[in-house]
């Protein structure tokens, strides 16, 4: 069987398949359904310095082969996460990636410090949440802001730092270069595309928050394109995501340039999606007699 080991930003992953932040909570629920040690890693629900209740419901709307969500970073705050959730997560035998959002650069840095001390494997810096007013995507749409968050987190963190990019920009490669120059160890992309659905009978947006983030298979071709663009722009490794639901999708994303991939929304349709994606990658590698999954990253042959 093909070797799935990948060293990503210096961290060993036993498979290149992780689950995407916000779609997997802190692991407990899916842990009842399958063995979480089969995952390459878990990106936990986005954390903030203080607890957040998130946005009012409804927080989800269905779209053609996708969903909009407007959860708005509901979470118990970084301290309670470290106290109540991380000890459990550490027992799972998989990498734990802390996803952090701040309203200010200082908040990002403070969280990075706490989480480094607490011993997560990787920090994912979310500068791309479309569902919060302060911070969030505002940091992700400007090279300067993205770079300054990255620099601050890098100074504070003692574990590798991955910066999560938003697709809602004119030139994602430019932002990727800015965070690479600012010291990021890796980038992840894409976060959700900003979208809206309206109930034509009530005339009100389906989401109480009016707009939300689009994810799921619908966005897959956009995500592949962006991963490919970023691959050509930076040298640091990429965690590719956005609409992956099969092993074939994951292989496509890796050919475009992803070193590892994340599975998110697909879990809502198939709770075993991440496992099936992993199995699909193995099948592809074996059929094509590829020994190590790292051999396919970025290996698209342009026409």
């Amino acid at each position, binding site marked *: 069987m093909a070797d799935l080991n990948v060293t990503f930003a210096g961290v060993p992953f036993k498979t290149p398949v992780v689950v995407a932040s916000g*779609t*997997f909570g802190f692991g407990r*629920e899916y842990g009842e359904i399958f063995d979480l040690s089969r995952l390459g890693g878990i990106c936990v629900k986005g954390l903030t310095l203080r607890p957040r209740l*998130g946005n009012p*419901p409804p927080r989800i709307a269905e779209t053609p082969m996708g969903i909009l969500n407007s959860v708005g970073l509901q979470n118990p705050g970084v301290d309670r996460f470290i106290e109540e959730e991380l000890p459990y997560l550490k027992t799972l035998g998989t990498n734990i990636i802390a996803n952090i959002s701040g309203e200010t650069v200082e908040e990002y840095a403070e969280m990075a410090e706490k989480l480094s001390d607490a011993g997560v494997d990787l920090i994912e810096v979310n500068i791309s949440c479309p569902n919060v007013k302060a911070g969030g995507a505002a940091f992700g749409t400007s090279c300067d802001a993205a770079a300054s968050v990255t620099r601050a987190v890098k100074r504070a963190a003692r574990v590798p730092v991955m910066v999560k990019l938003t697709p809602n920009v004119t030139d994602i490669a430019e932002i990727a270069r800015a965070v690479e120059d600012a010291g990021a160890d890796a980038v992840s992309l894409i976060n959700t595309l900003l979208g809206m659905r309206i109930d034509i009978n009530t005339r009100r947006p389906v989401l109480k928050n009016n707009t939300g983030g689009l994810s799921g298979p619908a966005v897959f071709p956009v995500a592949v394109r962006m991963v490919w663009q970023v691959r050509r722009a930076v040298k640091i490794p990429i965690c590719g995501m956005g609409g992956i639901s099969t092993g074939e999708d994951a292989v496509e994303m890796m050919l475009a340039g992803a070193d590892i991939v994340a599975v998110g929304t697909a879990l*809502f349709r*198939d709770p075993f999606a991440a496992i099936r994606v992993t199995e699909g990658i193995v099948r592809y590698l074996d059929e094509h007699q590829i020994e190590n999954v790292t051999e396919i990253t970025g290996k698209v042959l342009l026409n």
Partner: protein
Amino acid sequence: MPVLTLAAVRDVRQLSASVWKMTLYSPELARPAKPGQFVHIKCGEGNFLRRPISVCNAQGDTLTLVFERKGAGTRYLSERRAGEKLDILGPLGNGFELRKGRYLLVGGGIGVPPLLYAAKSAESADAVLGFRTKDAVILEDEFRAACGEVTVATDDGSYGTYGTIAAPLREMLASGGYAGVLACGPRAMLRAVAEICAEHSVPCQVSMEERMGCGVGACLVCACKTREGGARAMRRVCKDGPVFWAEEVCW
């Protein structure tokens, strides 16, 4: 422990203009299912999200679901035929907390079906069932068989008592002796039931609805605002609910 399974459709029949009843063979779902729990059903290739439908009854290896045809997902379900299989995740959610004693079940519209299994599981139960109009009345015989007293009310008085469930509910609570009230229906009705129960100091459990993603508690989209000992919280309808203590819900 939810399972993901292919359940065999045994029967699909129409109960009213917009409501269907589906019988499934599925030991994995039917055996562990508790009253108030739900299942999360994949509705073909065209609908991305699963659809949550409450357990209406579970007997032996057979699961019964009753649903209203609202949009594309429930339309898909209504068009299934015996012999086909459905991809179902479940049973999910907490379900009603049933102790000893007599329960009063209060259902409104498509909120009525989930109470049937509760009626069958309770030591004893009465029911107040509200519908818009006579043609919308469903499952009356089943409730009469499973309950002591059953009052049917219609908003337009075309069948049973005239008006909402509020008056019959007040009356029956006044007669006393209920261990608790279990309610399912539109939010406005649940709120009214909660208030009436509070007036009568009867513990009330309500089954809430919210749009869902994962169905298992991981994605936090199905939020229900609650207060617990003064503190505000967002709880998950799919995992912490769908059944909540009425006094904990921020209406």
